[in-house]
């Protein structure tokens, strides 16, 4: 038994961290927050060159053919750097195709998604807190679909939507198709734009897989959000240590005060043990699929809540500057708000975990 990341995974994490720290430093994040631009395509193309767009895609379709644990390592690094972009929805689209697409569908879409030429996005959420496959209500008839979806990542920039259909089925819809319209919302986390998708008898193609595939995709989403949350929470603690070690009040740095130290120690002691939850859930997804749904639910509920708490502590211990738009705290705080809400709140997933445990 070896409950640790491999050499390669550690390298992957370092590479991705360094990539986003260089290509999307906090000055760039502020530009994104200040501007109206939606997707930074330049950054997307470069991250695709790094292989991120096709990480889960099998090699025969032009991808890297890695496992979810590897992608979770990437998500952790992206949470750490508050990396902007559509990778979450994109990677889930490639996963759905890999698990539930026909040979023809895979050949048609995966190479272009793996190279980053096309961007994929998932359209699961419906009115209310309805994200789960058994809550989807859109129906398909004569290969056409109508209805609306919410909280779709980068709707105006995505080329291909993976739409959740009644009965836990999934269908592909091209943005350029007739009957498809998208709405951009402002959104609290501007590094991950969201919006609405309206379909009016839009042509679509059902994936062959049944609802068990949709549930796999949902579980992967929860694990990736948990990994992002871990990375962000870890970074929040680091930023707080750095700041309080420099800021002087009452003649010494804040890090001398017990009231400050204990809050940071509490945050670290809450966040660090939770990291293994993410790895374990991702490992289970790859190797022990029967355990994955419950572990994914627990990881998402737990990590995203820890992240909200850690980022709140960060803001508070920064005093006035932490509350500003210009200073970087807000990027992580708002990302925590996103991770908590996206794909359903912690309480929803705790309840699911309880049901899955047979309680």
């Amino acid at each position, binding site marked *: 038994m070896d409950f640790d990341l491999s050499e390669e995974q550690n390298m992957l994490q370092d590479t991705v961290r360094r990539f986003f720290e260089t290509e999307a430093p906090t000055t760039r994040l502020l530009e994104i927050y200040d501007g109206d631009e939606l997707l930074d395509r330049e950054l997307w193309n470069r991250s695709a060159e790094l292989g991120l767009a096709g990480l889960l895609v099998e090699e025969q379709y032009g991808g890297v053919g890695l496992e979810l644990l590897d992608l979770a390592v990437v998500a952790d690094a992206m949470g750490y750097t508050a990396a902007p972009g559509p990778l979450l929805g994109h990677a889930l689209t490639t996963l759905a195709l890999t698990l539930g697409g026909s040979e023809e569908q895979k050949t048609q879409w995966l190479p272009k998604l793996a190279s980053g030429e096309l961007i994929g996005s998932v359209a699961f959420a419906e009115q209310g807190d309805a994200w789960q496959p058994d809550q989807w209500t859109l129906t398909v008839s004569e290969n056409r679909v109508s209805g609306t979806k919410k909280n779709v990542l980068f709707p105006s920039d995505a080329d291909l939507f993976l739409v959740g259909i009644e009965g836990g089925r999934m269908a592909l819809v091209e943005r350029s198709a007739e009957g498809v319209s998208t709405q951009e919302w402002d959104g609290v986390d501007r590094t991950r734009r969201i919006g609405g998708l309206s379909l009016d008898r839009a042509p679509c193609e059902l994936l062959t897989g049944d609802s068990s595939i949709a549930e796999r995709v949902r579980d992967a989403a929860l694990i990736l959000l948990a990994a992002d949350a871990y990375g962000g929470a870890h970074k929040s603690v680091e930023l707080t240590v750095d700041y309080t070690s420099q800021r002087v009040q*009452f003649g010494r740095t804040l890090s001398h005060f017990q009231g400050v130290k204990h809050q940071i120690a509490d945050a670290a002691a809450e966040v660090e043990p939770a990291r293994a939850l993410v790895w374990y859930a991702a490992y289970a997804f790859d190797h022990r699929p029967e355990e994955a749904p419950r572990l994914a639910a627990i990881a998402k509920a737990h990590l995203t809540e820890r992240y909200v708490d850690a980022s709140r502590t960060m803001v508070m211990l920064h*005093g006035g500057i932490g*509350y500003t738009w210009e200073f970087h705290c807000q990027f992580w705080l708002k990302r925590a708000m*996103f991770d908590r809400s996206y794909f*359903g*709140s912690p309480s929803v997933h705790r309840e699911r975990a309880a049901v899955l445990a047979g309680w």
Partner: protein
Amino acid sequence: MNLDFTVDEQRFREEVRDWLQDNAPRDPQPLEGAEKRAYDVAWQRKQFDAGWAGINWPKAFGGCGMSTTQQLIWHEEYAKANAPDVGSCFVGLNHGGPTLIARGSEAHQAFHLPKILRGETIWCQGFSEPSSGSDLASLRTRGVLDGDHLVVNGQKIWTSYAHVADYQELLVRTDPDVKKHKGITWIICDMSLPGVEVRPIRTMSGERHFCEVFYDDVRIPLDNVVGEINGGWSVAMSTLSFERGTAFMSRQIALARKVEELIELARKTPKGAMGRMAIDDDEIARKLARLRANVAALQAMTYAAISRNERTGMPGPEGSMIKLSFADLSQDLQRIAAEILGPSMLEYEYGDTGWTHDYLRSYLASIGGGTSEIQKEIIADRVLGMPKGR
């Protein structure tokens, strides 16, 4: 103890209710800038014209001189009528004005108090500096005596509403050679004086709420000093304890009202499985019940403290407990709101008001006006008599 309202008090309540129902502005309060100022002063003027300005100010200074019970009734009805937050009039009505009443000269009082009550002037509080936040007494903005003027150089930061304010309660260092609390002067700074430069700062909820203020050889007449030269610390403390005391009543009533709104929201927000509402979730129901109890307890403590103040005259250090508890409960409220709202938090648009905006602003209560950690230090040394750690 007697918790019943008298017939007169009930009649008073009806009068207040009717007036607020008919007169409280219905259009939304702008979030920032000149529009917000215009909105706030218009509402203040309306209250003044009807005889409702300065409810906690003594009659001798143009206020309503309401009894504590009457203030309580006023704030309760104010919250029920959904009347707007005091906004940019806050400092004038709750810091600047009361400080002048307690410590200002007759000339200060005669000139400034009526203008504040009529909504003609907006005040801001220039205490914090880049290097002096929690350690306020270390402030470095210099005030040098030159004939009958104080010449001010330096910088303040986080000054709420400085960009729309006419006057500022300004703390400057007038004697750098004595212990830090001893060399500070409290002076009224006219924001239109040459050498004053204001630069707004955006908050993370998106609005331009506070500012940096720079002073470059700003000449302020000595007549504007409140209290003694080098005696500003005690003047400042009387203002701060005011903020931490009675001025809190209205915000607490607003908090209690928010709790009820949140309970309503939980009744109509779907959660989890089909057909269930957030309130059907036992965990949420229990959290709401606990929050409601804690807010009721805080209010009870505030009322008791206010009754005591009425007898003794000055707000005491228990104000720090009230402020700390208020900050914690405001955050609890927002945490539960986030749980109830779930994905609709994602859809926040900058410039919106509503729950997500409130969530982002909930930090304000734990940082602005002295942080929660500093309140804990004060509770430990001044209320509980433990040794001073700083």
